[in-house]
């Protein structure tokens, strides 16, 4: 029985990561997605090549579209880079959405307080306030984790709902636009409180540069600083980290403060950028989507940047096929899910190779 040949595919560890596969697997995933997606669209009675073109290419054919891609990717990348730092150290911040919301509240609060003022200092103050807001909201799970051992997963998630309700309370009440017929929106921020647009005729705003700075900064922390090293060690083996004198407490605090600040920055960039005011909802779930983006980017800032762009494209593409071809949003969701599955699954080839037949040792035995 042991000698019976088997053609079942199985995975054999490579021992080390394959450098070529690091770059090849996303391409492979994309090809598989195109094939499977094409099949899906065709089966549903849509012209597959047209659908794929509309989904992946048409959003990128204008300067406006490219600007939108970056606008959509900016909050995803900002949140995901902060989260990745924590995930590397086994700190599970699930509540970037709440921290983003608090960044919007703090930054937007400054904008409303300075509504009648002008000055170059308003925007920097808003940005700082937004980051502080995100950090404060991130500090709560960090404090409860380090002081009372309360799971940061639960606390950060629950606080997301609380943050949204606080924003709702503010825009339904005291922060309503006084000339706005009591509708739940703040005033539109004054020009001094709006992020400059980088490219005329698009919405590409200054927040994109924050995201780029976060990529560079995140890379620097992870690859070049002792703190980044500490986080990595803590993530791999908490015990070893402990022996080496690192404190888990410090890693938890650092992760939450950094990811809170970046999520807060994303929040203030949204309200001072494309939205331009405070509303009951400032994010369509960027904080949650950023968790996937962080892993798709393999927790590496450059990878995250690419993943954020791809994720953004998948939203833009979804809108394009709805408008252009009448493909319902439901199909887009299914397709998006497939794309993510393929991307995640293909990563296995980095560390494992596919083999057919039985492992050597077993065959000998």
């Amino acid at each position, binding site marked *: 029985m042991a000698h019976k040949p088997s053609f079942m595919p199985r995975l054999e560890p490579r021992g080390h990561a394959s450098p070529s596969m690091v770059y090849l697997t996303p391409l492979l995933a994309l090809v598989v997605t195109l094939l499977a997606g094409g099949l899906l669209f065709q089966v549903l009675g849509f012209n597959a090549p047209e659908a794929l073109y509309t989904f992946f290419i048409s959003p990128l054919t204008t300067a406006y579209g490219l600007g939108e891609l970056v606008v959509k990717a900016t909050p995803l990348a900002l949140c995901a880079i902060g989260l990745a730092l924590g995930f590397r150290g086994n700190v599970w911040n699930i509540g970037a959405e709440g921290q983003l919301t608090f960044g919007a509240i703090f930054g937007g609060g400054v904008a409303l307080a300075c509504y009648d003022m002008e000055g170059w200092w308003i925007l920097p103050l808003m940005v700082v306030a937004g980051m502080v807001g995100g950090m404060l909201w991130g500090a709560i799970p960090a404090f409860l984790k380090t002081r009372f051992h309360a799971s940061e997963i639960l606390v950060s998630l629950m606080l997301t709902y609380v943050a949204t309700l606080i924003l709702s309370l503010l825009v339904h009440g005291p922060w309503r636009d006084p000339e706005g017929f009591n509708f739940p929106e703040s005033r539109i921020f004054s020009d001094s409180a709006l992020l400059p647009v980088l490219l005329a005729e698009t919405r590409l705003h200054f927040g994109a540069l924050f995201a780029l700075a976060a990529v560079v900064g995140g890379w620097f922390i992870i690859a070049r600083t002792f703190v980044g090293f500490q986080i990595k060690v803590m993530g791999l083996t908490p015990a070893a980290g402990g022996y080496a004198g690192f404190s888990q407490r410090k890693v938890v605090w650092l992760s939450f403060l950094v990811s809170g600040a970046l999520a807060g920055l994303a929040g203030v960039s949204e309200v001072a950028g494309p939205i331009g005011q405070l509303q009951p909802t400032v994010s369509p779930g960027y904080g949650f989507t950023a968790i996937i983006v962080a*892993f798709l980017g393999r927790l590496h800032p450059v990878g995250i940047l690419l993943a954020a762009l791809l994720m953004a494209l998948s939203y833009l593409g979804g809108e394009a096929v709805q408008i252009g071809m009448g493909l319902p949003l439901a199909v887009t969701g299914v397709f998006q899910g497939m794309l993510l599955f393929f991307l995640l699954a293909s990563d296995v080839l980095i560390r494992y190779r596919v083999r057919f037949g039985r492992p050597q040792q077993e065959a000998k035995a």
Partner: protein
Amino acid sequence: MSIELLDATALLLVAMMRAAVPLALAALGELVTEKSGVLNLGVEGMMLTGAVAAFAATVSTGSMTFGLLAAMLAGMAMALLFGFLTLYLLTNQVATGLALTIFGIGLSAFVGQGFVGQTVEPMAAVSLGALSQIPLIGKLVFGQDPMVYLTLALTGVIWWFFARARAGLVVRAVGESPHAAHAIGYPVRLIRLGAVLFGGACCGLAGAYLSLVYTPMWVEGMTAGRGWIALALVVFATWRPWRALLGAWLFGGITIIQLHVQGMGVDLPSQVLSMLPYLATIVVLVLISRDSTRIRLNAPASIGKVFHPEG
């Protein structure tokens, strides 16, 4: 206490237990999955798929039993996809679970297109004649819908499974130390797949409770975030079944109490009252977490980590 007050209290408790059913079912399923060392964040997606499958099957066949079966199968199919990806293609569990939710939201909306606006007969509550008429305990103990009893029974069975059954011990061992379990000769991946599938079936049932019993209808996204609360409840419960049920009662109970407070015309913004279930869960978690050693004993050590038999 007057009879009226007793009855009012009983009604409140009945409402609380019913509100807790979808949370508890999903949390119990996820608890079993996590005990085996796998973290599936796709609960919301599996619940929605279960909800639409239950509704579609019941409308098409006229049988609620088929509906419940379909929900379990749909949840399991989603879980199978997740299990295949995470256990055999070794994908990251957190990301795969979130992707499963995106996929499930889309899939359920797609399948449900033709079912929006249709109706099914709601599941009748159990009625034991005179027994159900006893003040306070009548409705509470003898007059609930069958799924409430099922949830209680399931909690007991899962508790027994992990505390007393040999198989439960094996699942726990796989969750604690998959390499050791593998070395002893247990099929780690198959056991984990089983736990993942069980979780999917429970999430499917949780969705079915919403679309067949609680609010018998199909509307897109009708779980409205309950899957996320269920995930939080597993952590809240520190992976203990009875505590998961208590957590669901706490969350459901405070949700209903805040609605009662609003109805009494208390001068507090509704947003503040709506925060209470979330805040209360955090406060209680802090109170029970202070003794960290007990949590560490319950948390599956290998949770979320990729396992491959050859290292």
